[in-house]
């Protein structure tokens, strides 16, 4: 029998504090009933001052396994996810071998299940080997045990318009969605950072905003034409927000994500040539940061997704042009959203639950996650202390890699506990290593 947890005086979605009882994998009771039904054997967690949210769901995680286990494994990456308050993650397809067959996605799904930290939902590649030439066996991946619903060539753009059209159409048969990494390849050959004042000064090849916006504009029109749903990965520019806003006003079935780093960091950080700040799409300007915050607040942008991209030290400890693109994010995402959106008064905790849990769960068709905090619902939950403050030290994080752009930065909020189907994966802010692997 699993442990029963009585969470006392917790604030569901930041609302009125109540007691919540977790038993048998579900929320068994709330309010006065919770204490009454808890009995003597329940573990009591004093939740005064803490916010209770549905467990976070990441639509965009790079777990690096198979292939780059030196940067991250499914086990280390999902442990980091739990530490960050997540109960489900979507493992991106750019592994080696690529997640473009039923066999590979099932392997990743099994590794996730065996690790036991979060539910791992593999993302299937749209094209074989991410080469952008022919469709991967999308149906086989959808029908596999991994039950893939999100398809993406992330890291590369599905830039061939015919191929993109076919993919959008094909996944309708199994309620899938194509998640597009919007990057016009010809406009971004050799690109190193956002094209603008800073790139002009630094002499780094520019990645113009239009290279993202042009693809998004094309894709929303394609989605409209064929009546498919489209998801836009890591939108980063003010112009992209405008295009999504326009598409939604037209009734096009499009969703969009922004990363935590694009909510706060700008291209000025490239001035020190520290590859920690090299990411794709690149950090943009302060005006873009403001636009994506506004878009997230007004619902134009549906979700926050981490684009957690661990890299080995040698891939970052070099000159800028030689360094890999990407930054870690699982263990800082919630804090960044709190700092930029909640503490600034632009969003409530209920909004946070929407953008980091219920909306990504809906886009990825992840059952049992992102559910209301209500009796009978699966106990996939995270308990957050919004009053805490901490200085980010990448070496203390659970992820195997240390490429956090928030190194040395003080951020608000701390994950106190994470529950996956009623089982604590994190308690007192520490991953529960003893239990994770044994129970499922």
């Amino acid at each position, binding site marked *: 029998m699993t442990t029963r947890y009585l969470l006392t005086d917790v604030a569901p979605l930041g609302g009125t504090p109540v007691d919540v009882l977790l038993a048998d994998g579900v929320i068994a009771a709330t309010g006065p009933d919770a204490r009454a039904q808890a009995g003597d054997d329940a573990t009591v967690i004093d939740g005064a001052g803490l916010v209770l949210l549905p467990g976070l769901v990441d639509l965009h995680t790079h777990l690096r396994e198979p292939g780059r286990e030196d940067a991250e494994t499914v086990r280390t990456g999902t442990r980091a996810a739990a530490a960050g308050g997540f109960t489900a993650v979507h493992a991106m397809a750019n592994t080696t071998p690529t997640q473009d067959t039923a066999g590979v996605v099932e392997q990743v799904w099994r590794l996730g299940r065996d690790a036991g930290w979060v539910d791992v939902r593999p993302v299937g590649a749209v094209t074989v080997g991410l080469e952008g030439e022919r469709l991967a066996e999308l149906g086989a991946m959808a029908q596999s045990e991994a039950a893939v619903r999100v398809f993406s060539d992330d890291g590369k753009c599905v830039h061939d318009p015919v191929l993109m059209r076919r993919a959008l159409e094909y996944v309708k048969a199994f309620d899938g969605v194509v998640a597009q990494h919007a990057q016009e390849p010809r406009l971004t050959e050799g690109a190193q950072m956002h094209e603008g004042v800073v790139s002009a000064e630094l002499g780094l090849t*520019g990645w113009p905003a239009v290279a993202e916006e042009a693809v998004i504009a094309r894709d929303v029109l394609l989605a409209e034409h064929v009546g498919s749903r489209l998801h836009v990965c890591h939108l980063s520019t003010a112009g992209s927000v405008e295009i999504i806003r326009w598409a939604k006003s037209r009734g096009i079935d499009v969703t969009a994500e922004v990363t935590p780093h694009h909510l706060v960091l700008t291209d000025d950080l490239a001035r020190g040539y520290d590859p920690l700040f090299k990411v794709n799409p690149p950090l943009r300007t302060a005006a873009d940061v403001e636009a994506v915050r506004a878009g997230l607040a007004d619902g134009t942008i549906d979700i926050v997704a981490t684009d957690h991209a661990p890299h080995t030290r*040698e891939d970052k400890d070099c*000159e*800028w042009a030689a360094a890999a693109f990407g930054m870690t994010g699982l263990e800082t995402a919630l804090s960044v959203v709190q700092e930029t959106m909640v503490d600034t008064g632009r969003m409530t905790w209920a909004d946070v639950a929407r953008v980091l849990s219920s909306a990504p769960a809906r886009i990825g068709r992840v059952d049992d996650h992102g559910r209301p905090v209500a009796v009978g619902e699966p106990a996939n939950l995270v308990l957050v202390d919004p009053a805490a403050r901490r200085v980010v030290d990448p070496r203390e994080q659970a992820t195997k890699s240390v490429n956090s752009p928030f190194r040395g930065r003080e951020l608000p909020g701390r994950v106190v506990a994470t529950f996956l189907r009623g089982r604590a994966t994190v308690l007192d802010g520490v991953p529960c290593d003893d239990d994770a692997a044994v129970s499922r």
Partner: protein
Amino acid sequence: MRHLLSAADLDVRDAVRILDTAGQMAATQAREIKKLPTLRGRTVVNLFFEDSTRTRISFETAAKRLSADVINFSAKGSSVSKGESLKDTALTLQAMGADAVVIRHQSSGAPHTLAHAGWTNGAVVNAGDGTHQHPTQALLDAYTLRRHLVGDGGRSDVSGQDLAGLRVAIVGDVLHSRVARSNVQLLHTLGAHVTLVAPPTLVPVGVEAWPARVSYHLDEVIADDKPDAVMMLRVQRERMSSAGGGFFPSPLEYTRGFGLDARRLDALPDHAIVLHPGPMNRGLEISADAADSPRAVIVEQVANGVAVRMAVLYLLLAGESPAPTTTKVDA
């Protein structure tokens, strides 16, 4: 001054001090015995990841005239081409006791990374990084401009003076040019007015933040600005065949619009001088008439490069004289 990474690192005082020191160095180069004992026992490494015989020889000459030991490390045929990283190369040089590392690298920012990543204690001199900076080129250009255009044109002592009020046109491939970036910053610091002249495809997005005017018409700039100097940038022929069909349609069209030919040379004010960082593409950005005319100071730039690099090495390595040699034991 700990390193010289970018022209932007220099304020007007630093810049004038380097130019003045270069003047003193140049004076010693007129002597029969050109070698000075100043950097005896110090080691200067020329770390060249990109071929540039001219720049390497210039730095090598400068260091040797100051009596430093010089090690030339070229990426070709070395462990770098076998995959050794910048970091390991730097650590190796550090272990060998390099006092200064002169680095040329194809990646913008590599000298900055070398100076700040803790891989070396030596002074780092940027000898050209990607499309970012080439500060000693800008300094030698400023030195050349000052010699010819400040005071009475080279005969009087111009030490202590900046370039206030001079009008300089920089013409050509600004987008890919570290020479243009360095010169815009340094000339601005020294009080000159810079006009960049290029086809719009060779002007970077974001140039509006630079302290320079931009024009797409060389003839207009010559007629209206009456520049005191024109600095022609090298245009690489391969720019014609790069992504999107190239940055300009043909060499001929480029030359017609932006080449310095005899007609444009004649239209310049009488006192105006012509600079080029070399190597030149004769017949493309500059005609033989212009390159070989008395106004061209291109060969002199090369000589001035040695004096300026002597000054930079001197100020970096000997400028702050070490504390008197009292033996101090850690408390």
